[in-house]
C-alpha cells in the first residue's frame, strides 16, 4: 500500500477545533440525543447513589449512634439537595426506562412519537418528583 503523503501532520490535527467549540453556536442539540445522554448520566449517578443507600441501611443496622451520624449529614442542606436531585434522577431514569421498554416492544419508533415520548418523560418525571415530595411531607 502506497504511503499517504496528504495526511495531516499531528500539529495540524491538534489545532483543529474540537467538539466543545462546536457545541452551541454550530451544533444544534436534539431532544432525542440529550435525553439519551441524560439516561446514561442519571443511571451512573444512581449507581453511585447505591453506595449512599448501603451506608444508610448499614448505619441503621449498626445502632443509634451510627444512624445519628448518617442523619446529621443527610439532613444538612447539601444532603437534602443531593436527596432531591437523587429523587429526580431516579424518576427520570424510571420514566425514560419505560420509554425504552416501549421501544423494545416494537412501538413508538416514528420520529413524531419519539419526540412526544421525550417531552412526556421530562414532564412526567418533574411532576412525579414534585408529587413524591409533596405527598411525603403531607402524610
Amino acid at each position, binding site marked *: 500500500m502506497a504511503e499517504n503523503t496528504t495526511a495531516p501532520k499531528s500539529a495540524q490535527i491538534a489545532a483543529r477545533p474540537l467538539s466543545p467549540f462546536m457545541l452551541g453556536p454550530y451544533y444544534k442539540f436534539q431532544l432525542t440525543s440529550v435525553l439519551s445522554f441524560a439516561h446514561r448520566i442519571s*443511571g451512573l449517578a444512581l449507581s453511585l447513589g447505591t453506595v449512599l443507600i448501603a451506608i444508610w441501611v448499614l448505619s*441503621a443496622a449498626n445502632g443509634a449512634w451510627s444512624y445519628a451520624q448518617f442523619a446529621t449529614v443527610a439532613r444538612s442542606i447539601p444532603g437534602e439537595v443531593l436527596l432531591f436531585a437523587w429523587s429526580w434522577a*431516579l424518576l427520570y431514569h*424510571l420514566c425514560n426506562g419505560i420509554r425504552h*421498554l416501549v421501544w423494545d416492544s416494537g412501538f413508538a419508533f416514528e420520529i413524531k412519537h419519539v419526540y412526544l415520548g421525550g417531552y412526556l418523560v421530562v414532564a412526567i418525571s418533574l411532576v412525579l418528583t414534585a408529587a413524591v415530595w409533596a405527598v411525603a411531607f403531607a402524610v
Partner: protein
Amino acid sequence: MSLRSPLSEARGLGSAKDGVGHWWMQRLSALALIPLSLWFVFSIARYHVADYPTMLAWIHAPLVAVALVLFFLAAFYHSALGVQVVIEDYIGNEALKIGGIALVKLAHFALAAASIYAVLKIAFGAL
C-alpha cells in the same frame, strides 16, 4: 494472501459472548424496578426525617423488609448490568475494560450483600 475463508476468520470472534442474556436480564430487572423504585423513592422522601426508633420500626415490618430486599436485589443487579455497558462502550483498552467490569461486579455484589444483611438484621432483631 491467506487461504482461510472469510467465514473461518469470523468464527469465534462474536461480540456478545453470552447471547441475549445481558439484554434480557437488564429489561427484566427494569420491569421489577418500576413498582419497587417508585415505592422506595417515596419511602425515602417520607422517612428520611424520621427518628431512629421510627426508622427501625419501619424496616422491621415484614412487608417493608421483603420489599427492601427485593428492591436491593433488583437495583444492584440492574446497576451492575448498566455500568458494565457504559464501561464496554467507553473504555477501549481491553485490560482496563475487563478489570473495570470485574471491579464493578464485585463492588455491586459486596454492596448488595451488605445492604440485604443490614435489612435482615433489623427485620429479625428485637425493636
